[in-house]
C-alpha cells in the first residue's frame, strides 16, 4: 500500500458529527456500506459541492472530536470511496475503530493540525511515518503514526478483508 499522499487540504472545524455532517444519517439507517455509493454524499450537508471538488490523494483535516456521535461507519467508507487521507486533532474511540475498519489512512491525534494548514494548501503526508509537509507554507510537522498492527488492517482494505485473511491464516495452521 502507498502511504504517501499528496494533494489539496480540505480543512474542517471541531465536533464534526459522523451522522449528518460527514454523511447523511439515512445511509447509516439503511446500512449502506458501498464506498462507491457513499462517496457521492460525503460532507454533502456541509458543502453540497464537496464531492465534485475533491480528488483522490486529497487530505481532509479535521479538528477535535472528528466523527463524534453514534459510531456509524458510513462516513469513513465515503472518505475511502474518494481515496482521501485524513488528519484530525482527535477522533472519538468508536469512530477511530471505524476509520481503521473502513480502510482509511489517517493520523490522529494531531495536536493543533487545524492551525498548521488551510483549505487549498498543498500537503504531502506519509501515513507510515506521521510526517506532514505543508508545501504551500514550506513547513514540516511530525505526528505519531498509527501502530503497524492497525495499519495492516487499513492496508488490507478494512475490517472484512482483514477478518478473511485471519480466517485463512487460522485454517492454514
Amino acid at each position, binding site marked *: 500500500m502507498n502511504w504517501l499522499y499528496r494533494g489539496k487540504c480540505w480543512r474542517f472545524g471541531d465536533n464534526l458529527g459522523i451522522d449528518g455532517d460527514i454523511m447523511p444519517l439515512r445511509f447509516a439507517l439503511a446500512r449502506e456500506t458501498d464506498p462507491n455509493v457513499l462517496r457521492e454524499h460525503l460532507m454533502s450537508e456541509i458543502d453540497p459541492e464537496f464531492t465534485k471538488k475533491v480528488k483522490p490523494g486529497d487530505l481532509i483535516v479535521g479538528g*477535535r*472530536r472528528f466523527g463524534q456521535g*453514534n*459510531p456509524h*461507519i458510513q462516513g469513513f467508507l465515503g472518505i475511502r470511496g474518494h481515496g482521501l487521507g485524513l488528519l484530525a486533532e*482527535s477522533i*472519538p*474511540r*468508536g469512530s*477511530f*475503530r471505524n476509520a481503521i*475498519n473502513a480502510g482509511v489512512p489517517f493520523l490522529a491525534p494531531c495536536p493543533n493540525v487545524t492551525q498548521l494548514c488551510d483549505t487549498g494548501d498543498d500537503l504531502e503526508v506519509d501515513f507510515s511515518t506521521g510526517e506532514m509537509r505543508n508545501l504551500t507554507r514550506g513547513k514540516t510537522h511530525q505526528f505519531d503514526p498509527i*501502530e503497524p*498492527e*492497525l495499519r495492516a*488492517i487499513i492496508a488490507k482494505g478494512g*475490517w*472484512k478483508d482483514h*477478518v*478473511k485473511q*485471519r*480466517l485463512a491464516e*487460522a485454517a492454514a495452521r
Partner: protein
Amino acid sequence: MGQTITEKILSRIEGRPVAAGQIVHPVPELITCHDWYVVNFDRALEEFGVKKLFDPNRVLISTDHEPVAVTPQSSERQKKAREIVAKYGIKHFYDVGRGGLGHIFPVEMGFIKPGMFVEAYDTHVTNYGAVGALGIALVVEISEVLALGSVWLRVPETVRVNFRGKLQPGTSMRDIAQKLVADLGDEMIDYCVVEYGGEGLAGIDIAGRHTLCNIPLEVGAKSALVEPDEATRAYLAPRVKGAIELIKSDPDARFKAVIDYDLGSIGPQVAMPPTPDNVHPIEKALGTPIQHAFIGSCASGNFADLAAAAKILKGRTIHPQVRLYVTPATQEVAQEAAQAGLLEIFLTAGASITQAGCGPCAGGRIGAMAEGETSINTGTRNDVRRLGASGDIYLASSMTVAASAVNGAITDPRKFMKEITS
C-alpha cells in the same frame, strides 16, 4: 511501574505484562450478545464462511431488548435467534422469562467475577465493572471474536475516582454518576476506563455500582469498574464458584487523572435534552410538564432503584396525564420486587409493569413516547427519538422520576422525602 486494575486484567489474559497504549489481542473469558443482533452476527459469519465458533461454551445470549415479541416479524426474529443458538451450540442462552437484562443478570447469577475480561456486542457490557470485571463493547467486531476468539484492543488508560462522604437524602448514585461524568468531560474520559474506589465506596450498594459503571459510556469512556472490596465479596460469595480475588490497582500505578469526589456535595440532577452530559441541578427543570415516565434500564433498573421509587409512590397515584412504565431489569429483580410488595405499590399507583429486560429504553419498541411529548426516565440516553418519536427526554434518578410522575411535572423528590420522614 505499578499497574491499574485494567492493566492487570489484560496482562493476565495476555500472559505478559502490558501497559496502557499497547495494542493487544486478548481472548475474552465470556462473550455476550443480545436478541436483536443474533441474526446479524449469523449473517456476518455466513459471509465469512464460518461454520464453528471459536468457543461456543463462553458465549452468552440474552433476549432482553424486545423480550415480549410485539409483532409477527419480531416473533420470527426470536425464532431465528433460537435456531442460530442451536446451530452454533451456544452454551448460555437466556430467552424471555429466563434471565432478563444481559448487562445485569450474569452478575446476579455468578457468571462475572472480579478481574474477569468480557467482550460484548452491546455498549453497556461495562456494567460488569460493578463487581470489578472489565467489559469491552465491540459492536460489529463481535463477529470476529466469535469466529477467531479475539480482536485488537488498545489497552486503555485509567481515570481514578476516589469517593468520600455520604449521599444527601433524596439523592442517589444516578445523580452522582451523571454529574461526575459531565464534570470529568468527554475529553478527559475518551477511551479511558473510569475506576472507582476510596473510603466512600463501602457505602455504595451493588445497584449503585451498576449505575456508576453504566453512565460513563455515554460520554465516551471505554469502560468502567469498581475496585472490588469486602462488599463485593459478600455479594458474590453465595453466587460464584471458586475463589474471589479482590484485584486492586498498585499504589504506584499510572493514572491519567485522580479525582476526589464528595458524595454529599450535590442534590438531585437531571440530564437535559439532547445529550446525557447536559447535566444540571434539578432546580433548572422544575415544573416542566411530562406525559411519559419510565423506571428501569441497565443504568437504573435494579431492586434498589425500584425500592427508592416505591417509597415515593406508596399511597400516592400517578398524575392523570402521565403514564409510568416500570421495568425490573431482571427476573430476579422482578421476583424480589414481588416479594417485597413493590409491584403492588406500583400497580396501585397506576403504573404499568413490563417484562424484565431493557424496557422502553431499547428504542421505544415497548411503551414509546408520542410525537412532541416529554419524558422523564432512568434510561441510558436522551438523544432525540431514543424512545420512539421525537420529544424532550430528561434523565434522572428513580426517585425523581417517581416524584415527577405523581405531580405531572418535573419535581424534586426531596419534597416527598420530607413528608416521608416527618
